[in-house]
């Protein structure tokens, strides 16, 4: 039997089990979906605000319509990078990873499981925004092509962010510090990535900063799938730039998938009972 495939299957089972556990534990589910609920509230609050002083004024596209795809992109990046990094680092601290390492093909099973459960919970957090937003907010356009765009952007987005999240989670040992730093960074990026207002309103040098990171491209891709083509006028170059989107997200995915196994292997190799014991002591001191 191919034991590698076997471990993959176990990883799928593990990921599904973890996802189910998250769903059945109310506090856990709440902490994951709280952001989504807040974003829905913000969007509803913004609904009806016309895009004054932009080329979109009078097109039927409101601030809420324009922001919703970007909010989906933000949730994806939060899930793929922040949650992934946080969970990996927590699992390292509390011995989950060491336990997996003691099993044959356990580390692989663990990682597949983590990718599956984080992807599922991220998709859920996006659906919690998408469904009410579409029902309550006007101005979206639904086509088969648009839905397909949404799907491939999401899939490519997960590929681009999960490895990056895993790498960050293996490099830093303190899960609490990781979350703090990453959330701050992402908030900053959100401001410059054209999520809540068109990027055209920002100075050009900030465009270059934004275009390095996946969040801008994910937002652009989501808008191209959900908004009518008339909305393209406030984008850079007045184009959805599909090829560039694939290129940049693809590059993040490629680099991430090349680096992640190296970084993860190095991290997993260092796990042992005594390193766990050390972290337990440190964590206890923080709490006590």
């Amino acid at each position, binding site marked *: 039997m191919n034991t590698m495939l076997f471990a993959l299957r176990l990883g799928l089972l593990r990921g599904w089990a973890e996802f189910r556990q998250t769903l059945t534990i109310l506090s856990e589910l709440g902490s994951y979906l709280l952001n989504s609920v807040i974003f829905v509230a913000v969007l509803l609050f913004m609904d009806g605000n016309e895009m004054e002083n932009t080329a979109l004024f009078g097109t039927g596209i409101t601030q809420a319509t324009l922001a919703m795809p970007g909010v989906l992109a933000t949730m994806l990046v939060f899930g793929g990078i922040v949650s992934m990094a946080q969970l990996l680092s927590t699992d390292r601290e509390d011995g*989950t990873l060491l*336990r997996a390492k003691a099993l044959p093909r356990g580390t692989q099973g663990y990682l597949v499981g983590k990718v599956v459960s984080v992807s599922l919970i991220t998709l859920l957090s996006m659906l919690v925004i998408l469904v009410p937003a579409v029902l309550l907010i006007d101005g979206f356009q639904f086509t088969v092509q648009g839905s397909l765009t949404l799907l491939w952007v999401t899939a490519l987005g997960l590929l681009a962010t999960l490895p990056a999240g895993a790498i960050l989670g293996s490099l830093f040992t303190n899960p609490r510090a990781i979350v703090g730093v990453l959330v701050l960074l992402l908030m900053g990026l959100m401001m410059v990535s054209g999520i809540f207002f068109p990027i055209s309103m920002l100075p050009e040098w900030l465009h270059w900063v934004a275009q390095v990171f996946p969040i801008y491209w994910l937002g652009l891709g989501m808008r191209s799938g959900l908004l009518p083509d008339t909305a393209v006028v406030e984008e850079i170059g007045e184009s959805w730039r599909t090829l560039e989107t694939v290129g940049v997200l693809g590059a993040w995915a490629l680099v991430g998938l090349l680096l992640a196994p190296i970084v993860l292997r190095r991290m997993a190799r260092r796990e042992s009972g*005594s390193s766990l*014991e050390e972290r337990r002591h440190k964590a206890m001191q923080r709490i006590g």
Partner: protein
Amino acid sequence: MAAAPHHVTASPAPGSADQPVIEVHDLRMRYGSTDVLKGVTFRAERGEVLALLGPNGAGKTTTIEILEGFRMRSAGQVNVLGSDPAHGDERWRARLGVVLQSWRDHGKWRVAELLEHFGRYYRPYSTAEISRPRGTAELLDIVGLAEHANKQVRTLSGGQRRRLDVAIGIVGRPELLFLDEPTAGFDPEARRDFHDLVHRLADLEDTTVLLTTHDLDEAEKLADRILILAGGRIVADGSADQLSRQVSRKTEIRWTRGGQRFVHSADDGTAFVRELFAQYGEEIGDLEVRRATLEDVYMAMVHRHESGVAGDDEPGFGGENR
């Protein structure tokens, strides 16, 4: 008790016909400029239970982690189940059991669900001789967690969690089981259950067990052979009885006669007592004959080593037993 190492007539396991299960020669470990292990040498035969004793910081955990393949050594030869742990593959890993000290991992899993899941990893490594994994119901029964099967792991008490740790360690029906301070935090009843379990594994399934403990009484009860690690070396290697003879050939005899207490140390305790009775007969009361206990041995060996009497280049007592 398991068969003594020299009388093992084990049916050959795959890839380990008559080889020892563990063979360590001149193992060295250095962290920065500190030598933690300065040449550890020992071996374990199939079905043997070994207890590794030693003061804190002596390198017990380091030794075990090297054997588990979780830590790279600085120098020396190590062979575990026919492989070098530094290059052990997944098939090798499947033959080992590791009992980890858990903290709060897998808190959301239910006990039976977790054992079932971990068991699946071993299924491809089942052989004609050893069927893997062990069934969940059997496991729960062995460690006494049957009534908690559907509880979430985080709701278990400390002692129950340790039982779960043990269950996870043996889910793959390991040929070699590592236990690092397995009974820390156990109440006396749990401790006795655990001792029964170790005997059962060693006797019925021929599992080789290497455990570390601070409880000398436990080591004496469980282990066929005791290793004392001090100053980065194995300073004693033998059964509790052999070790006590190494420390002192003398036996301590206490008795009372005519309302007076007497204490005497004799080379041959039996002969001394025989003579005592021949001389005084029924006048003797409150007789106690006592050879050095494992605690005496341990204190003597560790002290001897720490005060440097054994010298830095002497191999220690381990060699005398070979």
